[in-house]
């Protein structure tokens, strides 16, 4: 696995080199080659900003969407400048790495609940109803528990078919983290993870697979990454948040989820946020890098350019791009924390920023 990841990184760097060669030779302003790999969830955002920043500065930046697990392994093997992950490292995971790492949140995403009922575009669900549906306890669309929140909507007596991700996914992790927080029986019976032992329903591969089945099949309900659902304009369920409000997923309501108290190291799941305007199934996505950047014979320029790029990434320009590609930008407080974290990154003990 270690070798595979390495070969992959080498490959993407090589492709990147051949692609940008002429441009950089002309401008002559090449300062650093920054390589990163990890989560697929923020990949459309990273691809865009990495590309923009490369053109802007003449640095060569490449990102490989090989999954969060791959991102952590690559950082561990020191074949990338930084990794990207949808789930923050637990203390045990962090201890397995050769040196201390810091987490930098880059944007927020959400998990939305999509459904297919002909003629119905708006549907509301309480927390416990959502959990019961995915546990298979509520079997029909016209169950009194669903009807109670949707007066005036003529729900059919069809069976509910649950659709979930058949592949391991950060989307599943965020969704199950939320369900475990709101439902004790979910936490006991199913739990939290990237792939689960689903009590009912059927699986499909990737966001497109789940969205495809839902679009094609009446009576289905499933969860999809917001970046995909927003881009495809898929109708979503309004969920009840902790404050009791029914909230539609949107860039604003997802950002609002991170307005509450965030620890200084930003390692927190912001699902089930207490903010009254927050969409409840929202989460950060992080970049992870070593706190001490002098390792493996890295040059100080390389380290400085890496940190500078990350500073730009959490800054207003890049965050505006995030919104354009359907991710929720970091709220002000999170940007402040991210900047503080970047300032704590050192090279031979000296801060880089």
């Amino acid at each position, binding site marked *: 696995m270690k070798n595979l990841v390495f070969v992959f990184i080498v490959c993407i760097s090589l492709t990147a080199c051949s692609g940008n060669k002429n441009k950089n030779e002309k401008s002559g302003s090449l300062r650093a080659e920054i390589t990163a790999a990890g989560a697929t969830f923020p990949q459309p955002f990273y691809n865009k900003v990495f590309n923009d920043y490369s053109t802007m500065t003449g640095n060569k930046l490449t990102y490989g969407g090989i999954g*969060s697990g791959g991102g952590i392994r690559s950082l561990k093997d020191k074949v990338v400048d930084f990794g990207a992950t949808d789930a923050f490292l637990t203390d045990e995971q962090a201890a397995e790495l050769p040196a201390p790492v810091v987490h930098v949140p880059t944007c927020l995403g959400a998990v939305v609940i999509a459904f297919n009922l002909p003629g119905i575009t708006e549907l509301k669900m309480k927390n416990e109803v959502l959990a019961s549906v995915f546990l298979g306890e509520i079997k029909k669309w016209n169950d009194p528990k669903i009807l109670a929140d949707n007066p005036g909507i003529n729900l059919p007596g069809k*069976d509910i078919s649950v659709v979930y991700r058949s*592949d391991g996914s950060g989307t599943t992790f965020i969704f199950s983290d939320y369900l475990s927080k709101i439902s004790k029986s979910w936490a006991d019976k199913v*739990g939290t993870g990237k792939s689960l*032992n*689903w009590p009912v329903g059927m*699986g499909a*591969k990737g966001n497109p697979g789940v969205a495809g089945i839902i679009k094609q*099949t009446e009576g289905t309900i499933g969860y999809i990454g917001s970046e995909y659902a927003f881009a495809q304009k898929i109708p979503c369920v309004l969920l009840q948040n902790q404050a009791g409000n029914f909230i539609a997923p949107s860039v604003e309501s997802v950002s609002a989820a991170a307005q509450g108290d965030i620890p200084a190291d930003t390692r927190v799941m912001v699902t089930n946020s207490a903010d009254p305007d927050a969409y409840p199934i929202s989460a950060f996505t992080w970049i992870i890098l070593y706190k001490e950047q002098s390792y493996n014979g890295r040059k100080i320029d390389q380290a400085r350019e890496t940190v500078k790029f990350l500073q730009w990434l959490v800054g207003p320009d890049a965050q505006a791009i995030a919104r354009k590609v359907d991710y929720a930008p970091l709220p002000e407080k999170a940007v402040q924390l991210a900047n503080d974290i970047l300032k704590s990154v050192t090279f031979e003990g000296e801060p880089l920023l």
Partner: protein
Amino acid sequence: MIRSREIFTSDKIAKVILKSASFLVLLLAAGIIFSLLKGSIPAFREFGIFRFIFSSEWNPTEGKEVYGAFPFIFGTVVTSLLALIICFPLSFATSLFISEYFKKTKIAGILSTLVDLLAGIPSIVYGLWGFYTLRPLIVDLGLSEQGYGIFTSSLILAIMIIPYATSLSNEIISMVPNELKEAGYSLGATRLEVIFNVILPVSRSGLVAGYILALGRALGETMAVTMLIGNANLIPKGIFSPGNTMASVIANQFGEADGLKLSALIAIGLLLFVVTAIVNAAGKWIVRRYA
């Protein structure tokens, strides 16, 4: 003298090339088996070979990890056998049409080309066709509420293996000696009687081998099945319920898998290898026994 020496050396070179080529194939197969075995050791050690094969619990949740391959073995075998059963009347009738009733006519030629063409269609295209056309049809017929499951996958598999079964059957049926058939007719047999009393007994072993090869093909099919079977990691409750197959679970979960789960998936790969090997060996044995 010189000429014969030249022939001798070229013969030697050919021998070396052939030997090394076949050795390379052998090495590849051995390498595959070795890495499958090595990768599956952690899963077998954790659960025991017997329990891994016959347990139907598949729980990837961290801390509660339990892996059993039975739902996938069951799904693979059931979909493939069902596909074979559905495929048999269709492909047998087609091959009788091509190589007996309308032998060497233009229409038989066109039909046989079309059947061969079916083999060239990528499996993702079959999958998409199944997803957008076949599945809604099954829902409209009222066979199942959502259309995903064992039956739909078997149907698409049957269509996919028809060309393999048909081409082989064509060859074998057309190899039945004319003298035998003529003898049947001269005794006053009807065409149908000749088919069931002459052609079938003579070509039986070849036909069986052909269908077993088609079965081997169905066992390993991935993409089209993944799109239609529902990918539920449990033993299907009925023929119209969602399930999963060995190839499909590997394709779905390999990407993000690590640790014990990765090992369990590799072990499923090994089991699939074994099942396919058994089926192919059975085919060869039948051919040798009855041919």
